[in-house]
């Protein structure tokens, strides 16, 4: 009997611990379940902040899943607006959703964007036996008959993976986006299996999602959407080198509440820059297929504004928002 109750109490204590945060330590909110990109950002940056002695206590990671980051976003704007000990993981998905007004009317200027310190390059891949040899072949095929190619990606329609091929097409002068076929799978790996299986003609995703399949030879990458070839994958040509002026990187970074002082904001920017410059972070990036992509502080804010404006325009053109 006593034994039983202890069990129950023990279990609930573990649960309670994982759900609450201590008042004195820095808290990093990952707006998704454990796993995933945001959780990774919090855990890795949080670990380095402590290892590099930039904070005195280990960073507490809280997972706050829901509405693709929307639940965390509204929580921070309405309840934690002046919390200077709070950082939140963000990525391209955050800005895409903000641009599409998917956070219940919240806008990007309701938080402060600290910086991005690494990016997962966008890629477009096809099965090994695909007739398409270059990105140009694929674009020409779509121009000739938009329904002849279906893209598979790891995000829902209108999400970041969907926007990547559309940006490429836009740079080639094709704008009938509603005709371009896309199916949203549950994650990049599922999108790859559909493409290898021949159900879709191309897959759009992040470098980290396809690296294993590239090495095993099951898929070929037509293009990586960065300015320079990615270290370790130099044989994959950039879209730019094939005449498409597109750069799409799924950046990893942080935002903080709007209501903190400029000094507090600058302190976070400095700390993040220190992490970005550290040898440890470079190792983390290399191990996880991230490419260098550092924009911290005021630069980042301006860049975010531009990205959101562009995404809003594109989303209107494909009809995800009015």
């Amino acid at each position, binding site marked *: 009997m006593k034994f039983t109750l202890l069990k*129950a109490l023990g279990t609930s204590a573990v*649960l309670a611990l994982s759900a609450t945060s201590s008042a004195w330590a820095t808290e990093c909110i990952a707006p998704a379940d*454990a*796993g995933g990109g945001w959780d990774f950002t919090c855990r890795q940056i949080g670990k380095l902040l402590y290892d590099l002695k930039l904070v005195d206590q280990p960073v507490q990671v809280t997972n706050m*899943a829901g509405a693709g980051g929307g639940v965390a976003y509204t929580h921070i704007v309405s309840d934690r607006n002046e919390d200077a000990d709070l950082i939140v993981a963000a990525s391209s998905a955050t800005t895409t959703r903000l641009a599409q007004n998917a956070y*219940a009317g919240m806008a990007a200027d309701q938080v402060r964007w600290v910086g991005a310190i690494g990016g997962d390059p966008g890629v477009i891949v096809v099965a090994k036996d695909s007739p398409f040899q270059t990105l140009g072949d694929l674009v020409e095929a779509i121009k000739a008959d938009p329904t002849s190619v279906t893209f598979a990606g790891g995000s829902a*329609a209108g999400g970041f993976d969907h926007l990547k091929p559309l940006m490429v097409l836009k740079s080639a002068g094709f704008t009938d986006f509603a005709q371009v076929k896309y199916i949203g799978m549950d994650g990049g790996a599922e999108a790859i299996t559909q493409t290898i299986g021949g159900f879709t003609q191309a897959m759009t995703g992040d470098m980290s999602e396809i690296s*294993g399949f590239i*090495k095993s030879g099951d898929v070929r990458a037509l293009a990586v959407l960065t300015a320079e070839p990615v270290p370790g994958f130099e044989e994959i040509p950039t879209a730019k080198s094939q005449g498409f002026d597109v750069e799409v990187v799924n950046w990893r970074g942080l935002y903080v509440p709007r209501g903190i002082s400029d000094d507090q904001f600058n302190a976070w920017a400095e700390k993040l820059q220190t992490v970005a410059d550290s040898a440890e972070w470079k190792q983390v990036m290399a191990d*996880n297929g991230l490419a260098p992509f550092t924009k911290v502080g005021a630069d980042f804010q301006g860049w975010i504004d531009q990205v959101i404006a562009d995404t809003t325009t594109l989303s209107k053109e494909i009809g995800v928002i009015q």
Partner: protein
Amino acid sequence: MDTLANLAMGFGVALTPYTLFLAFCGCFLGTIIGALPGLGPSNGVAILIPLAFALGLDATQALVLLTSVYYGTMYGGRISSILLNIPGDEPAMMTTLDGFPMARQGRAGDALVISGVASFTGSFLSTVGLVVIAPILASIAYLFGPAEYFALYLLAFATLGGMTSNNQAKSAFAACLGLGLAMIGLDNSTGLPRYTGGNLHLMDGIDFLVAIVGLFAIAEIFIFIESHGRNSAIGVTLGKLTIPWGDLKATFGTMMRSTGLGFVAGVLPGAGASLGSFMAYMAEKSYVGAKGNFGKGDPRGVAAPEAGNNAAAGGAMVPMLTLGVPGSGTTAVMLALLMTLNITPGPLLFKEQPEIVWGLIASLFIANIVLLIMNVPMVKLFVKILMVPAWVLMPMVTMVSFVGIFSLTGSYFDMLLMIAFGVLGYILRKLDVPTVPVILGILLGGQMEDALRRAMVISNGDWTFLFSTPIAVGLWAFAVLGFLAPMFLRKMLKRPPVPDSANED
């Protein structure tokens, strides 16, 4: 021979005293987490991830701990299904159908032993399957496109009609209710929210764990309060625990068939353990036919879903390790753990990091043996947790339900939603409408819709695409057969008794 050498190396990695200790802790914790309603395998594993980091475990040790928890929950889920009529986790849902009636008949101990052995058979054989045919099986995933998935889910729903013996219209109603609830949330094919009423918490749809805990656990509490415990499952007692050799022998064939089915369901990405246990139960029911006593405490109705869901758990490892595609919610969490440990599952994992893969496989075997020992001879220990007097157990079930769901999402809204499901479950039970199809509707309905929509996008809206491959046509044939067969069989089976009774008159 290569395989055996690799496996030996795997045991070399996994068989250190510390990892064995971790396996033991993991199995124990997993069984408890599985048995407590509201805490299922995916949040059990998710909760323990920070612990694995805090303990500074290396990759193999972390994997051993978490796979033991995973397999443990798959075993543990059956305990509360049988004793409380509340599934400990979603794959154990089908076990309530015959497990609880057995407990009512005073055969709770038998049901626990049979299901424990079935769980062992399912997961042990599927681990063997993982070792022998993982690389070959991986290519099955390439054969299943949207049309094939749609036909597969359709097959699951087509057999639903025969699930409850008393009233098929009520099961159909319950399934439609579930399908309707599955519509809520972000529509994958257009990126637009549906039926959310602008509420952010509904954007991701309804979490089926919230629905399960509400429909089963909270509804059970309402029933208990209303009847002062008389009509409630809470408080069923467990007699002496003996090993029912006869039943085990009789259910051997069932376990084998269900293991096969469950393993295949697990290997298919996205189908997972719940579909595995459902298919195993329904297949066994139609295999046995009218001779069976399904739904009223047939031992085969306990053995089939348990072998099926544990086999699916093993099967789900195949696409996770070879393709990086999680076959179930829990393997999705484990995939995340692997990535954090800088191990990228995919086509090259077996070649590049054999010690991780074979260490993991060895630890699965170890976990299974430990779990068999814990769950058959020592099952009383876990049963004790659920066997406390109702006035203690009921608040405990309530508390764990709330804490469990809160740990999942950290959302106040989900607690309200869970209570709403509790009220719904209470009303449905009063109307004698089964709740299992509601869950299946929520669980599989969304995926079925996605598959159909994807098929239509790919084929430019041509419906003949749904019948364009042999696999799809085969699944459709089974679906039609599964839907029609019960109607004709019932007629044929009902006919003979009529002359008999006429003669007696």
